[in-house]
């Protein structure tokens, strides 16, 4: 274990130990909660493995992809002020704990609060609980949307509130955050550093009886010089070898540049009728006017509850069309367009659909057993159809 990891583990132990002894000393006790998932699964590709993020990319049974543990400490220093620290350790990262939440909450009124610190970014409707497997009925939240982004937590401030209007309830979350960290970490070499400045986040949920509509979005200024250096700079020899003018080459590089606005939007609904439940979400995201394509992802899920057993069937779909890039409208030289398209095809090639049948059995309070089987098709010819299964347990305490 590296020195930095050891330091993190020691820090976690220290924080937990202090928290355990605090109740005797402090007026307000520290509440300790935890969650976790232990799951084994296997993907059975007909050809190549689709290499979806943290989705059984290796041969054989995998225990690591979905297995994780979280620990949360919460305390209040007054009726209005509370502190939350949440640590998350994933098996894939050798349980090296990350600070997934760390914020101070100031209660302005019973239904309005401010949070300062490290917050979950509402990229999608359930981003803030995506690692708490017990909190939903799926074996894992639909992978097409919830495939675990590197910038799913960021530092900043949030205003959260909820209002009742007769039989309607409205919940809203407004955030202003900044992210600085590495992306594409799972592609090896520790990832590529980027910064997301002025991330303006909004999430809305409107509920009426058993119907809930939700929508939201994130917009940020991307500072991705390293991304440009690693992905776009290698194109320079091809550009210089082309017959395009220097001005056209410069315009081409400017058009593909990643230092642009990143935007994420989502919307959907949940509806419960007796033992039936319907859930759907759709998202659209990307770095606009750059080499990044506009991604779309969606799922539709139908569940039925038999007391302790919940059966859910869902279809999910992710689409990255390498030719759905806005820079094509700015670049006219055929040679440059082909260079750009080739790059886009190598970067943006995750398009698939998958059907998943999930089973949840509530064994006892706080413990749910889950199983699923899935069947999908990837657009890449060398991947094609794939199927698989997983078995596991989700818990909270």
């Amino acid at each position, binding site marked *: 274990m590296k020195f930095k990891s050891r330091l993190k583990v020691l820090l976690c132990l220290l924080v937990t130990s202090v928290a355990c002894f605090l109740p005797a000393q402090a007026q307000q006790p520290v509440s300790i909660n935890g969650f976790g998932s232990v799951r084994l699964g296997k993907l059975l590709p007909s050809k190549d493995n689709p290499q979806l993020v943290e989705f059984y990319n290796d041969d054989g049974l995998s225990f690591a992809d979905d297995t994780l543990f979280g620990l949360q400490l919460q305390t209040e220093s007054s009726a209005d002020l509370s502190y939350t620290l949440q640590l998350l350790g994933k098996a894939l990262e050798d349980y090296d704990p990350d600070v997934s939440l760390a914020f101070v909450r100031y209660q302005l009124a019973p239904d309005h609060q401010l949070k300062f610190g490290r917050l979950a970014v509402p990229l999608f409707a359930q981003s*803030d609980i995506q690692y708490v497997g017990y909190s939903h009925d799926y074996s894992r939240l639909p992978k097409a949307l919830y495939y675990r982004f590197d910038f799913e937590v960021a530092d900043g401030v949030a205003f959260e509130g909820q209002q009742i209007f007769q039989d309607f309830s409205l919940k809203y979350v407004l955030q202003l955050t900044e992210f600085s960290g590495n992306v594409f970490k799972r592609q090896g070499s520790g990832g590529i550093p980027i910064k997301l400045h002025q991330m303006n986040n909004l999430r809305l949920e409107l509920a009426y009886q058993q119907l809930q509509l939700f929508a939201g979005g994130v917009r940020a200024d991307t500072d991705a010089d390293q991304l440009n250096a690693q992905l776009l700079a290698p194109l320079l020899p091809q550009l210089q070898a082309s017959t395009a003018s220097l001005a056209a080459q410069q315009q081409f590089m400017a058009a593909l540049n990643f230092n642009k606005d990143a935007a994420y939007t989502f919307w959907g609904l949940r509806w419960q009728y007796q033992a039936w439940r319907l859930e759907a979400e759709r998202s659209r995201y990307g770095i606009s006017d750059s080499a990044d394509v506009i991604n779309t992802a969606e799922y539709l899920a139908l569940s039925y509850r038999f007391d302790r057993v919940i059966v859910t069937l869902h279809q999910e779909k992710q689409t990255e069309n390498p030719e759905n890039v806005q820079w094509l409208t700015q670049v006219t030289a055929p040679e440059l367009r082909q260079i750009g398209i080739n790059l886009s095809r190598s970067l943006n090639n995750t398009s698939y659909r998958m059907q998943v049948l999930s089973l949840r059995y509530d064994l006892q309070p706080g413990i749910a057993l889950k199983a699923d089987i899935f069947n999908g098709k990837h657009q890449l010819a060398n991947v094609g159809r794939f199927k698989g299964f997983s078995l596991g347990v989700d818990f*909270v305490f």
Partner: protein
Amino acid sequence: MLARPLHAADFVVVVHNDNRSAITQQLLMQLYLKKTAAFADGKAATLLHLPRSSAEHQQFCLELLNLTAHQYQSYWSRLVFTGNASNLQFANANSILQQVQQNPAAIAYLPADTALSGVRQLGFLRNGQWQESPVTH
């Protein structure tokens, strides 16, 4: 297997004697789902529950929220692990009565045949239907 049992139980919902708020079934549901954390007068509410494994708690979750007790805990875990709620508070009927007598923010449900004293009865939940008690001054 049926999602809702054949014989639904009756519950009485109580608050502190000083709490003069009226409540509708929708607001009761919104409170127990923490879609609002306040009574109609804007004052904060503290929810109390009968023991987690009790038949009464399971029945109340089904009748009011159309959720099993497991689903309710699953739902509540979303609030806890986003730092937006504390753990659910469970207690037996006697302890609940004492807490409601002492805490002006408390709201709780009890079996309808519970002998009440020193608390205000808001209404009854019968077969999933809310019947508000007349306001007494």
